[in-house]
């Protein structure tokens, strides 16, 4: 019975979306239904994490086919942690969407699409089959692109086109990688594949010629998913133009799919070649931290600045994965969870301020001084900014501390120095943003409109940031357990293949 639990976080949003579409004439019922479905799915994912924490990985074979022939769903500690993080943030996104004034949130397709986005992301985390990963990633991309295309911002379709085109291209890359791996090993099951690659690397025979190709193609796919630097160009446009509740999700949890992919690639699929991948990740991470920070400095729009800041924060996570020691992996997971909380809250706050401006836009010129009459949101934004820059007592500080500590322990001084210096850039762009919105006097006659998006969701998230900053112990313990689990790929293989 327990093994069915891994199905629920995928099935509930998926059926919830289908049933929600049938309710398209009754918007209020549809909203309540969607909120209920996502809430139930979040509870199921927490239960999944609880069971995984107590009894080890939960594996479910779809249709009862034995592995490696059928599709396997694997709820291991990493996947369950990512699912709880993603669905927790998505619940706050839904709360924001319920209280926001965007016209697109009143379209009958909005909430069903939000649920398919959830199902796609959750499925991609939980699947143990690379072709299934492709299917769920496509579901995620389709719903994300449509949600952006229907945005109130008139640039929505342009941004959605860019994103969708690049993502389809990345999906083709993943499909080629799947083909290459299938040619070489004749299996699609991740555990089986990992075992065969490991065994193949110990043989005297040379590795299959398409293995390197598959590694590069899959790496590129996850780079596009996480918007890592050479493939980042769609991300700031996309996250600026999409409606606030959606952009807060895209910039926080959806980019974590790539992080998850890199973790799986270096600790499970390509363990014998992990050193090469890790070296690449460190370089990409440092470039991302520097480039993202500098690009965020030069923006004229609050949402766009936060989108660029995501590039930098993903860079920190990649450096953590690149160092690859248990401590560094734990730090990367803490950073990933923290960044999701912080970035979702910050984007919601930026969107909530923009919704109170005369023209709905987060451009700094449009919202200068608007914050004078919104002191509570200012306090929240300041706390979020502190978390983003890594200043105690927020969770951002815990994450950065863990990362730097693991760098010192691992004697990674050059890369540590690089990201240490680059992390100061965060303060340089976030403080002027706060000053522009809340400190500078507004132009003559400019006033915040009464009403606007409700700020319950960002308040919840910032509260959680503070809580995890003061009481970091549970998250740190969880991350340490995950990194211990990741350190032993044979346990994953044994759990899935039942040996």
């Amino acid at each position, binding site marked *: 019975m327990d093994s069915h639990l891994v199905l629920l976080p995928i099935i509930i949003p998926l059926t919830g979306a289908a049933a929600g579409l049938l309710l398209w004439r009754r918007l209020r019922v549809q909203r309540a239904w969607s909120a209920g479905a996502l809430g139930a799915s979040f509870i199921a994912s927490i239960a999944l994490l609880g069971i995984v924490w107590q009894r080890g990985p939960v594996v479910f074979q779809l249709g009862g086919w034995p592995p490696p022939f059928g599709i396997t769903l694997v709820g291991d500690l990493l996947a369950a942690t990512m699912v709880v993080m993603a669905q927790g943030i998505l619940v706050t996104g839904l709360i924001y969407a319920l209280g926001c004034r965007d016209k697109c949130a009143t379209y009958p397709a909005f909430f069903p699409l939000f649920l398919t986005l959830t199902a796609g992301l959750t499925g991609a985390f939980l699947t143990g089959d690379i072709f299934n990963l492709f299917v769920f990633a496509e579901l995620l991309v389709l719903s994300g692109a449509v949600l952006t295309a229907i945005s109130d911002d008139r640039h929505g379709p342009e941004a959605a*086109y860019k994103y969708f085109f690049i993502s389809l291209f990345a999906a083709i890359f993943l499909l080629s990688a799947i083909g290459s791996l299938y040619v070489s090993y004749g299996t699609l099951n991740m555990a089986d594949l990992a075992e065969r690659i490991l065994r193949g690397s110990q043989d005297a025979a040379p590795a299959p010629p398409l293995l390197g190709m598959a590694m590069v193609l899959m790496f590129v796919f996850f780079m596009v998913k996480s918007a890592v630097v050479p493939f980042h160009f769609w991300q700031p446009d996309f996250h600026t133009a999409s409606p606030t509740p959606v952009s807060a999700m895209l910039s926080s949890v959806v980019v974590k799919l790539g992080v998850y992919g890199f973790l799986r690639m270096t600790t499970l699929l390509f363990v014998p070649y992990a050193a090469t991948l890790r070296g690449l990740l460190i370089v990409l991470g440092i470039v991302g931290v520097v480039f993202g920070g500098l690009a965020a400095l030069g923006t004229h729009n609050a949402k766009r600045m936060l989108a660029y800041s995501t590039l930098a924060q993903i860079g920190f996570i990649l450096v953590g994965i690149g160092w690859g020691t248990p401590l560094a992996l734990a730090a990367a997971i803490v950073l990933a969870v923290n960044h999701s909380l912080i970035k979702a809250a910050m984007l919601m706050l930026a969107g909530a301020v923009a919704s109170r401006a005369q023209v709905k836009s987060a451009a700094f010129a449009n919202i200068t001084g608007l914050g004078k009459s919104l002191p509570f949101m200012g306090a929240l934004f300041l706390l979020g900014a502190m978390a983003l820059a890594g200043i105690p007592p927020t969770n951002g500080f815990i994450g950065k501390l863990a990362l730097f500590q693991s760098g010192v322990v691992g004697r990674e001084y050059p890369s540590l120095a690089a990201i240490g210096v680059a992390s100061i850039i965060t303060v340089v762009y976030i403080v002027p943003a706060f000053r522009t919105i809340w400190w500078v006097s507004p132009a003559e006659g400019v006033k915040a409109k009464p009403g606007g998006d409700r700020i319950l969701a960002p308040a919840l998230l910032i509260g959680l940031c503070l809580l995890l900053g003061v009481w970091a112990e549970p998250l740190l313990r969880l991350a340490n357990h995950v990194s211990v689990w990741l350190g032993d790929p044979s346990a994953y293989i044994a759990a899935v293949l039942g040996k």
Partner: protein
Amino acid sequence: MDILKAFAIGTMFGIGVFQILRRSVIRSAIGLLIISNAVNLFLLSTGAYQGAVAAYAQAAGQRSDALPQALVLTAIVISMAGFSLVLALVYVLSTRYSTADSDEIAELKH
């Protein structure tokens, strides 16, 4: 026969890449479709080399594999959904900006 198939896939991929690099969004959308079909063909070809043996077979006498056909079917359905969304977006863009030139559909600079 395998050589011919490989050349066909390679040529399709090449045409697709060339079309993707064009400035017109319509042409690049068509290029994407051609590339995705080239990859589908590649997937299909992994099931049976020389018409009989699966690509990864090591022992003699192993039979061809039907799984890639199921994969390709799924990939075709997904690419159909994706491509219809791409066409819809191209339609919206080309009417809204009254051009299909990707250099002129660039208002999201700041």
